[in-house]
């Protein structure tokens, strides 16, 4: 059942409101513009689609247009942060942190300056634009850089909170955002703290499988848990922070359940599932099933169509839960 302290939306399973995570990001920027003069927003010719246009209109002097030049986007922001500003750089995740990865590594992470990298249009759910614009490797690229914090909010409200938390965090942060409208799960009351996993669902019975989800697919993980309510007893955690991992929560849940499923809209290799598996392999080995794209690029299509085709849908998550439950290490 829904974990009450998570303060999720009451209509969660009954026509939830829909919004893209990028909307929450844009909303938070407006709040930041109001309260912190150090915040500046850098745009790479994608003001509307990365949702920074309202910030541009309200705070034009804190808005910097870079043009289609993602390497310069990273380096100018590194300079601004080095001087004392809190720059947010925005583009599509394939371009930033994709195209400008080395600039981020040297001038932001190794320099350890507080640039906030917002990578929009991450995941398959970009849809019709096709493989070139569907970032499936950005979590991997970002989580291997020392000093970098990696956030992957599950809905628009959590993206708002993640953006505010990123601004307050003294160091580089990557925030993964999506284009497509997805269900609103969390409320303003839902707790959010960088590095703290949020428990969304907890079976009142002895737990058999712990599910760790990140990004908007957390909704599908919840639906899967609910549909399996009387068959396999699960806990579902929202790992909105992929780095640093909430080791304590993950280990406790894995120990209790003895089996784990990870769910993400990203390559299986190098993503959140890999991060969880690295931890479990070292500390408490249990069987893991990975829901993620299996070493393939995306293609054009409707978001839901793609999610199903690449094996990230509710039926796939349910199947993974059943499968791993059968392999569980029972104490």
């Amino acid at each position, binding site marked *: 059942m829904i974990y009450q302290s998570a303060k999720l939306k009451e209509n969660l399973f009954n026509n939830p409101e829909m919004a893209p995570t990028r909307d929450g990001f844009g909303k938070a920027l407006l709040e930041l513009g109001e309260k912190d003069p150090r915040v500046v927003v850098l745009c790479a010719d994608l003001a509307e689609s990365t949702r920074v246009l309202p910030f541009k209109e309200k705070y034009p002097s804190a808005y910097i247009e870079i043009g289609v030049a993602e*390497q310069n986007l990273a380096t100018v922001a590194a300079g601004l*942060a080095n001087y004392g500003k809190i720059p947010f750089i925005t583009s599509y995740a394939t371009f930033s942190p994709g195209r400008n990865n080395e600039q981020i590594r040297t001038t932001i992470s190794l320099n350890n300056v507080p640039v906030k990298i917002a990578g929009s249009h991450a995941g398959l759910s970009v849809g019709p634009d096709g493989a070139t614009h569907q970032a499936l490797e950005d979590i991997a690229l970002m989580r291997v850089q020392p000093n970098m914090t990696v956030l992957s909010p599950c809905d628009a409200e959590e993206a708002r909170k993640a953006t505010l938390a990123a601004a307050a965090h003294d160091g580089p942060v990557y925030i993964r955002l999506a284009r497509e409208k997805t269900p609103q799960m969390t409320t303003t009351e839902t707790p959010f703290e960088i590095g703290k996993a949020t428990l969304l669902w907890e079976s009142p019975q002895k737990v058999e499988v712990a599910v760790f989800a990140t990004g908007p697919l957390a909704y599908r993980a919840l639906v899967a848990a609910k549909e399996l309510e009387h068959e396999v007893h699960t806990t579902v955690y929202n790992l909105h922070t992929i780095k640093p991992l909430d080791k304590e929560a993950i280990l406790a849940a894995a120990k209790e359940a003895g089996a784990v499923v990870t769910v993400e809209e990203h390559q299986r290799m190098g993503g959140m599932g890999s991060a969880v598996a690295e931890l479990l392999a070292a500390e408490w080995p249990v069987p893991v099933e990975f829901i993620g794209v299996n070493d393939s690029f995306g293609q054009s299509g409707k978001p839901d169509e793609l999610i199903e085709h690449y094996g990230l849908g509710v039926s796939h998550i349910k199947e993974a839960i059943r499968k791993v439950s059968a392999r569980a290490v029972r104490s």
Partner: protein
Amino acid sequence: MLTQEKLQELELKAEAIRETIIEMLVAAGSGHTAGPMGMADIFAALYFYILNHDPKNPAWDERDRLILSNGHIVPVRYAAMAHAGYFSVEECLTLRKFGSRLQGHPERLRLPGLETTSGPLGSGLGQAAGIAYGARMDNKKFRVYCAMSDGEHDAGNVWESAMFAGANKLSNLTVVIDRNNIQIDGMTENVMPLENLRAKYEAFNWHVLECDGNNIAAFVEMVDEAKAIYEKPTVIIAHTIPGKGIKEIEFDYQWHGKAPTAEEAKKFLNELRTLKGKIESEHQ
């Protein structure tokens, strides 16, 4: 105005920096020789005349910022900083050694006063432009200097940043290009031609100056002119001699990325000390 006395002092500082570069490179056993030697005059002028800075307080808010984009010539910066009092000249001998603050390529977090981390080419100008932009937002009076190599102008990031600085008229930014015409694989015009470099920068809305980069008086004059340009960033194309000060390595691109042996260093240091005597007698 640069007096004859000050000029002589700067020339002697440049000579002392060159000696330290040779000493640190031979102690390290690896590193770049040509670029640092060629830029010794400019770094002497920057650290002992141009920059508004405080070696005892490297984080001073109002300091001028010197961004070194081509991080591989950092021995010249370390040597200049040591002679200016940021740390002891002896510490220079730890260059490239385990645990040293003087990394093979400069790291901001390891040594106060470096401003940025660099080495991968082409990303210093964007950072310098970012600092200049932020400073202008807050009406800060300090200036931003960015030292670059000519070879790194092969990198696209440089031109993205040049376009940005020109478009935003960042007049508090002065770039110095070490135009020594060499890069690792040979002469710049053979590897990937850069000319017409002046015309390229002019087309990007920059004020372009050129000088002999081994003539301190000429360089200082260019920097002063840059301060009087209010509508554009300025680039000084400083024509330098790679390996300057040691006849047998001057102009030789093969000295881009190697350090002298102990024997070579002894010979080079003798030649530099002769140069020192010459500077002292010339100004008498």
